[in-house]
Structures are given as structure tokens and as C-alpha cells.
């Protein structure tokens, strides 16, 4: 039986990838331009929508005025409350949702390429659960926001190191063993998170941990935006620099090595970048699942499997997608809906649909 993990997942040697990527636009320059224009406009449109809607009715011209008044001499016609909502609630929250979605989209795309497995995401390889454990522990210990962020960073990175260490045999880590090691580390980190919850006072810290684990950007601040932006720029930048090498890695280790790619260092660098991206999102928004799994599939469908295009497309789609979901989370009812729940409700069926198409097209075993 051919293991599913052995299925080449990326630009293939024989052009098979056209079956997955019916939208591969390389042959149509005009179409390429239109596609990228739309991809760029999508998160921007979502951002405009997100800034414009909310529980407090703020007229669109007031929203625009409040935002532009920082740079332009505009006579304020809005109330102080409107200004506070737009500036301190909607703006940081929308930008944070954008950054979290973009980070997760890129992290997922890079993971799927480097592990040659269409069914992995940050949650599968242990990064999310590792970071979640660190954050929960920090909440239990009464740490402030910065402590939660630092702990999530450290344990997120730590779990990747452990996953990689577990999977290494004779100086190399096979994709299948990497995924299995991720499952092991995820389970262990999950147990540690359960232990933290067990230790937490049900009347105080437990509820905070549970809410944080469900995922939310409701308490977004500019500090969190700064932190997530830093991890997004560093992690995302590194992935973009490595995009071509990820392409080669996704051909398989033997072919990549034959083409002169230093397999282990590159895979390490990609995993570290992914850990940075995911830990940044977990620290500020808790565990938001499915974005990193489902969004790269949609992006691959639109722009093809080449990571130089796939990574930015996943970032743009992921950012816009999470912004839309967060708009729903904060406006559908007077109470906040958990973001992680909504991304799963939307992401899982979308992923199922894409998976089904892939199977029909014969590109997924």
C-alpha cells in the first residue's frame, strides 16, 4: 500500500500538479494580474468591513474620519465613544485578526510543503498544543500578558525542537516520523494543559484558561498587534526567503538532495519559522484551529503549488478569512462567540470540500 504521506505534494516533476491546481495561472499573464489584484483586495475589503461594523452603530464617514484624523486635519464630527471604539477596539482587533490569519495561513502552507503532507497543520505537528500549554501555565501562575506571550513562544518553539529531535534518525527526519512525533508531542502537551486546568481554581483561573484556549482576539491591544506583527514579519520573511527551497523539499528528500538542497538545515529553518508564526498567534489569540489547514488548500487551488506564490496567497486569504470570522464572532450576538469554534465550523466543511475535490481529481490518495 502506498502510504498517503508518500504522495508528492507540491510542484511535481511531471506536471501532475495541474490536476490539483486547476487555477495555476502561470500561462495567463492577464489572469495572473487579476487574480493577484483580487487576492490583495480581499483582505483589504475585509478590513474595511471589519472597521465599519460592530455592536455600536458608527456611520462609515465617521469611521473614515476617525482613522484619517491622525494624519489629516479633519474637523471631528464624531463622538468620543465612537472614536474610542474605532481606534482602540476595532482597529487593533481587525489588524490582529488579519495578522493571526495570515500567520496561520503561511505556517500551514509551509508545513504542508516541507512535510509533503496535505493533511498537516500547525496543530498536527505539536506547535499549537505546545504553545497552548505554555500560555495556560502562565495564566495559572498569574502572569501578565507579556508572560503569557513569552511562555507560549518558548513552549511552542520547544515542542518543535522535541518533535524534530524525536523524528531524527541518522541525522535526518522523515516526514512520516515527523508527523507521528508531532502527534506524540501534541498528546503530551495536551496532557500537560489538562494538568494545568486541573490545578487551576475553577472560580478564577480555570475560566480564564478555558476561554483563552478556545481562541479569541476580543481583548486585542496594540501591544499584541506589535508582538504578532513581529513574529509574522520574522517568520513569514524567513519562509519567503526559503520558498524556492521548500519547493525543492516538497519533491522528496532524495531529489532535493540531488539538486543540492541542504535538507536538514532547511527543514529546521522552516519548522522554526512555523513555530515562531504559530507561537505569535497563540500568545495573542489562543488556539485558533483550521485556518492553517484549510486556507493553504484554497490558496493552492488559486495560485498553484509554487511556494513563492503559495505563501503570500495563503497569508492574504488567511488574513481575510479570519477577519470575516471575527466580524461574525463579535457582531452576530451581544455575547462574543469563540473564534476557534467558528473557524472550525467554517474551516472543517471547506476543508472537507477541498479534500473531496482533490480525491476526485486523483491528486490525493
Amino acid at each position: 500500500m502506498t502510504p498517503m504521506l508518500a504522495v508528492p505534494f507540491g510542484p511535481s516533476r511531471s506536471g501532475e500538479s495541474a490536476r490539483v491546481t486547476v487555477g495555476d495561472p502561470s500561462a495567463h499573464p492577464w489572469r495572473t494580474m487579476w487574480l493577484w489584484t483580487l487576492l490583495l483586495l480581499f483582505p483589504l475589503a475585509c478590513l474595511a468591513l471589519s472597521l465599519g461594523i460592530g455592536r455600536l452603530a458608527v456611520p462609515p464617514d465617521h469611521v473614515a474620519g476617525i482613522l484619517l484624523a491622525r494624519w489629516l486635519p479633519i474637523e471631528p464630527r464624531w463622538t468620543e465613544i465612537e472614536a474610542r471604539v474605532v481606534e482602540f477596539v476595532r482597529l487593533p482587533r481587525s489588524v490582529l485578526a488579519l495578522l493571526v490569519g495570515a500567520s496561520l495561513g503561511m505556517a500551514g502552507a509551509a508545513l504542508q510543503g516541507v512535510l509533503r503532507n496535505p493533511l498537516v497543520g500547525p496543530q498536527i505537528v505539536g506547535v499549537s498544543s505546545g504553545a497552548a500549554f505554555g500560555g495556560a501555565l502562565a495564566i495559572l501562575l498569574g502572569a501578565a500578558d507579556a508572560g503569557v506571550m513569552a511562555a507560549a513562544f518558548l513552549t511552542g518553539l520547544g515542542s518543535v525542537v522535541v518533535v524534530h529531535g524525536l523524528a531524527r534518525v541518522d541525522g535526518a527526519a522523515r516526514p512520516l516520523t515527523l508527523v507521528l512525533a508531532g502527534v506524540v508531542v501534541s498528546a503530551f502537551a495536551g496532557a500537560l494543559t489538562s494538568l494545568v486546568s486541573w490545578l487551576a481554581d475553577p472560580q478564577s483561573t480555570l475560566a480564564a484558561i478555558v476561554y483563552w484556549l478556545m481562541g479569541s482576539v476580543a481583548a486585542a491591544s496594540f501591544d499584541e498587534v506589535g508582538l504578532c506583527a513581529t513574529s509574522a514579519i520574522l517568520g513569514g520573511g524567513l519562509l519567503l526567503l526559503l520558498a524556492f527551497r521548500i519547493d525543492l523539499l516538497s519533491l522528496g528528500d532524495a531529489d532535493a538532495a540531488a539538486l543540492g538542497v541542504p535538507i536538514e538545515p532547511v527543514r529546521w529553518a522552516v519548522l522554526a519559522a512555523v513555530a515562531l508564526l504559530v507561537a505569535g498567534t497563540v500568545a495573542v489569540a489562543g488556539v485558533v484551529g483550521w485556518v492553517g489547514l484549510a486556507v493553504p488548500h484554497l490558496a493552492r487551488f488559486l495560485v498553484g503549488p509554487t511556494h513563492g506564490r503559495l505563501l503570500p496567497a495563503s497569508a492574504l486569504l488567511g488574513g481575510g478569512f479570519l477577519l470575516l470570522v471575527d466580524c461574525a464572532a463579535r457582531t452576530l450576538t451581544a455575547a462574543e462567540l469563540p473564534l476557534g469554534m467558528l473557524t472550525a465550523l467554517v474551516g472543517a466543511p471547506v476543508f472537507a470540500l477541498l479534500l473531496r475535490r482533490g480525491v476526485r481529481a486523483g491528486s490525493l490518495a
Partner: protein
Amino acid sequence: MALDAPVRRVVAIPIPSASMLVAVSGGTERLAAMNHLAKTAILEGVLGEFFPAARAIPSDVAGDGFVPNVEAILARRPDLVLQWGDRGPDIVRPLTEVGLPVLLLRYGTEDLARDWISMLGIATGERERAERLLEWRAAIAGRLTAANADLSETARPKVLYFLRFLAGQQVAGRDTYNDFVIRLAGGRNAAAELQGFKPVGPEQVLVMDPDVILLNGFEEALEPRHVLQHPVLRATRAARTGRVYKMPLGGYRWDPPSQESPLAWLWLASLLHPERVTVDLRATIAELYGWLYGRTPSAGQLDRILRLSIQGDAPGYAPFNG
């Protein structure tokens, strides 16, 4: 369940039940063991200072999710075990299977709190104390209802209670005990459109625009300044007028139902309607503690119960200053 004689050795698993047992039975002598969280609740409040012996009471009788540790419980040879009655049979069956007498308690409303007091009064043979406590409870509720009877809806300040604030904001909607207290004290719940305890975002809180904000007593680090200096919430009417208060912590936290609930009602009512409800709260606390716990709180203890160090200067708080 029938008890042959007043119980002498009680194992208390539900968190508020330990301090309520102390109140109804007048001391910690009958508390054979308790949940470690119940012990924390006792030790962090004034009861820990009143009854230093409580520190030595074992707290190893329940684990995760109030699952009883049957062997530890049996080792304490209790004649009664108090356990939650509304959290499923899995946390009860292990107790009944080994033949332990169990009193199941449900929680969260004023009626249920009154039931606790009567049941514990019967079990401990302290019916009279329990009845006196219930009468006092009913008298204060009656007094507040009468004082606020002619209040129009608009004359009731909009009050918002935060069950959580520091990590994920959660407020009390309708059908919560806090909704009942807000109403009784002459307010109206700013979050009445929500059902139960629900997470909200700061924008939603601005839309609710409460006149008064109450902060929970569970999050130790939480203080009114967190609202007063919050970049968004400081635009609420409550923050602009400084009417942001943290719930006091006496023999038990004052936000959920307890033996001390009427003190919390009086505290809130005098903050909302000082012209209608005048009360010497410090004297009332001292009087209640005198017969409930057999101790007289010092001025310093009263200051800590009412949290004067963080809100002594808040509007309406002058009558509570010693």
C-alpha cells in the same frame, strides 16, 4: 437520607459549603475535611484569621472536577459528605457505593442558598441558628424590596457585573444570581439581553453603557483601576463617574450566594441608592460576625473586607470608611 443524630464530622466538597458549614455550626470543629479550593477560599478571607486551626484541616478529599477521593474521605470517618447535586452522578456514585451518607447540594439561586442553610441546620442540629440566619436574610430582602418598591425602571441605575475581567471579559446576564442581587438592590442589569454568564467585547460594554460596574472577587489581581484606566471602558458612564467597585470578600466572597449575602445586598443598595438605604455596614458586619463566627472583626479586617485600600475614595464609599 435520614440522620440518627446531629453530624459531628463533615467532609465538604462544594467550595462554598465549607464556609457555610462554619457559619451554621458556629465554628470549624465539625469540618473533618474539605476540597482544597474550599480551603483556599476560607484561608484567603477573614475566616482564615478567625479560625487559624482551619489551616490544619485536610484538603485531599476531592480531585479534578470535584471527583471524590473515596479512600481519603473514608479515612476521615465522616458522618456526612457534602457534594454537588447538579454536576452529574459520576461524582456522587463513588460515595454512595461505599455507604457514605451524602447530602447533595445545588447552587446558584437565592432559593437554593436558603435550602443549604436549612439543610445544614437540620444536619448539624443547629436548626435555631439556621432559622435565625434565614429570618435575617428574609428581613433584609424584605427591607430592600420595600425601599425600592416605587422605583421606576429609569430610576434604577444600569449595573454591569463582570464575572471575569482580566483574561476574557464575561458578564452576568439575566437568570443569574447577580441579576437577582442587582434587581434587589434597586438597579437594573445592563446585560439583561444576555442569558446566563456570557463573554462580551469592550465595544458591547460601551453599547450597554452601565452606570455602575461591579468587579468579581475571584480574580485577586483585579482592581477598579483596570476599568478606570482601560483605553475603551473608561468611556463608560460608570468609569467617567468613578462608580466602579470590586465585590468585597468576607467569610466568603460576596458575589455568589453565601451565608453573608444580605451584607452584599446592603452594600450594593447603599451604593446605588444612598438616599433610600442608609446602613452602618461596618457595625452590621461586626454584629453578624459576632453571632455567626463568635468573633469581632478589627477595624483593619473590616477595611480589608470592604477593600478600602483600592476603592475607599470611590463615590458613595464614604459611609464604609471607618
